[in-house]
């Protein structure tokens, strides 16, 4: 594994030089000069071809490459690009050339070579200076790149957050506007059902209207949840209590599923305390469980549905909560997009694609991580969250 240059301020103590040179005499001269420059502070690995150099970058610790441009079977520069691509930004490359060819040299410097040395002009002082500067410059370049990357990713996160916030605000406004008419219709249906004592088609019409209003209300509530998923009020709670009240919330859905399905809980016997926003954490689990319940509906007659909620402490302060179901196969692309807002495979059933997205947001809010995967014929939603408490 290549050494990480940024780990040490004293690079000479672990200077591993890869020398790519087909001419043995040239190598021996260079080695002699390097020894004079660095004493015992540098190690050398000598290879004669580009192919060996590529392998060495993979297998050996390399802090810098000295590359002869006149390798057999390659014209000036053609060996640099593949090697530079292989070495990546962490390993600087200094070009060695017998000829002073300004065009080739400037094109290689532009392509990322840190420096160039004309063989006849090389002396120990020049070598040492060139190598030290190359390593320092490469470190600085890496730092700049890493800052640029983190800036870009922060920017994209901010943009995403801004988008979600805009959707959230829109949703909150919309919810208020929709709840009143929904409430009015619900009152109306209730009144007609009570006073008309309807039968036959009239009864069916009223019942279907009632179901539709409830479904619309659920969609609107999902939007409201989505818009409020950013508020966070943690409290210390016992995981067993949290799981028990979660199960209470979904129990009626399992009782009335209309197909054979069971919910199992497995948790450690000893109490585990955790600092979470209980309401939100239950919400997250309910969403995962309901999602699994929906998935098991299409299993078919041969097998009954099974959803299990499993909980265990891993790595001391990290809690693993998993909701596992034996629903049909889910493609990787679907799993990968499952937590995206408004992504749904259940649009015919009235899904708006916010359940798992809300779950994901709640997980992140707790400094946790939600992952979905398919394994051994089971779909597994794994939530890792810090307990938020320091155990002595």
């Amino acid at each position, binding site marked *: 594994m290549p050494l990480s240059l940024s780990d040490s301020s004293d690079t000479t103590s672990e200077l591993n030089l890869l020398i790519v040179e087909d001419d043995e005499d040239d190598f021996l001269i260079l080695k002699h000069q390097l020894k004079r420059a660095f004493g015992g502070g540098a190690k050398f690995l000598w290879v004669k071809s580009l192919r060996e150099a590529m392998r060495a970058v993979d297998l050996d610790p390399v802090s810098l490459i000295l590359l002869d441009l006149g390798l057999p079977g390659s014209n000036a520069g053609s060996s640099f690009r593949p090697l530079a691509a292989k070495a990546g930004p962490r390993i600087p490359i200094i070009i060695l050339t017998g000829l002073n060819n300004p065009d080739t040299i400037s094109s290689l410097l532009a392509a990322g070579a840190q420096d160039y040395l004309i063989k006849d002009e090389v002396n120990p002082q020049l070598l040492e200076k060139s190598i030290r500067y190359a390593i320092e410059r490469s470190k600085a370049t890496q730092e700049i790149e890493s800052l640029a990357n983190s800036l870009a990713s922060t920017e994209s996160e901010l943009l995403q957050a801004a988008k979600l916030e805009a959707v959230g605000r829109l949703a909150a406004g919309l919810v208020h506007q929709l*709840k009143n008419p929904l409430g*009015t219709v619900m009152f109306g249906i209730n009144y007609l059902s009570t*006073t008309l004592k309807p039968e036959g088609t009239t009864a069916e019409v009223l019942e279907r209207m009632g179901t539709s209003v409830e479904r619309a209300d659920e969609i609107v509530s999902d939007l409201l949840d989505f818009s409020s998923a950013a508020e966070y009020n943690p409290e210390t709670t016992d995981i067993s209590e949290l799981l028990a009240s979660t199960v209470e919330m979904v129990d009626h859905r399992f009782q009335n599923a209309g197909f054979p399905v069971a919910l199992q809980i497995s948790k450690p016997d000893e109490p585990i305390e955790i600092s979470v926003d209980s309401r939100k954490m239950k919400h997250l689990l309910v969403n995962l469980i309901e999602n699994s319940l929906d998935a098991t509906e299409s299993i078919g007659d041969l097998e009954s549905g099974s959803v299990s909620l499993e909980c265990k402490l891993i790595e001391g302060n990290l809690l693993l909560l998993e909701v596992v179901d034996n629903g049909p196969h889910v493609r990787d692309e679907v799993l990968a997009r499952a937590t995206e807002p408004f992504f749904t495979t259940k649009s015919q059933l009235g899904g708006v694609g916010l359940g798992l997205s809300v779950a994901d947001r709640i997980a992140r809010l707790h400094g946790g991580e939600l992952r979905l995967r398919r394994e051994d014929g089971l779909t597994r939603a794994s939530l890792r969250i810090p307990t938020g408490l320091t155990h002595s």
Partner: protein
Amino acid sequence: MSISDLKTHILIVDDDSDFGRLMQINLEETGEFTCELATSAEAALKRLREGGVDLVTIDVMMPEHSGGWLFNEIRADQALAEVRVIVISALVEKSPGQVLPKRDPMGVISLWKPVDPDVLIGAIKAELQSLKSS
């Protein structure tokens, strides 16, 4: 004393008159309540001060003065100390799977729209009961 004097009199405060009117129809259908409507917090407070209202349902989000303003005015007025209050909001965050209304830390029952009529009637009765027992 007429029959209606024995019934609980409810003031429904909601700026959405369709919602309010249908709530009234449903409550009166039970035969246990008489209702009237107010479509603003100010009108509601004026009506409450005239007396004869046992319980008021307050919509939280209303233009001009909000339901919260009305609630505070009622609580601040000694003459209205016996008026029972139920808050009905479009933006109450209910927990998934939650069926029954909860009292907030101040002891006020909050319901969310769309209100299930049975839940609403249950809440009204619970609130009236708490008056008798206090």
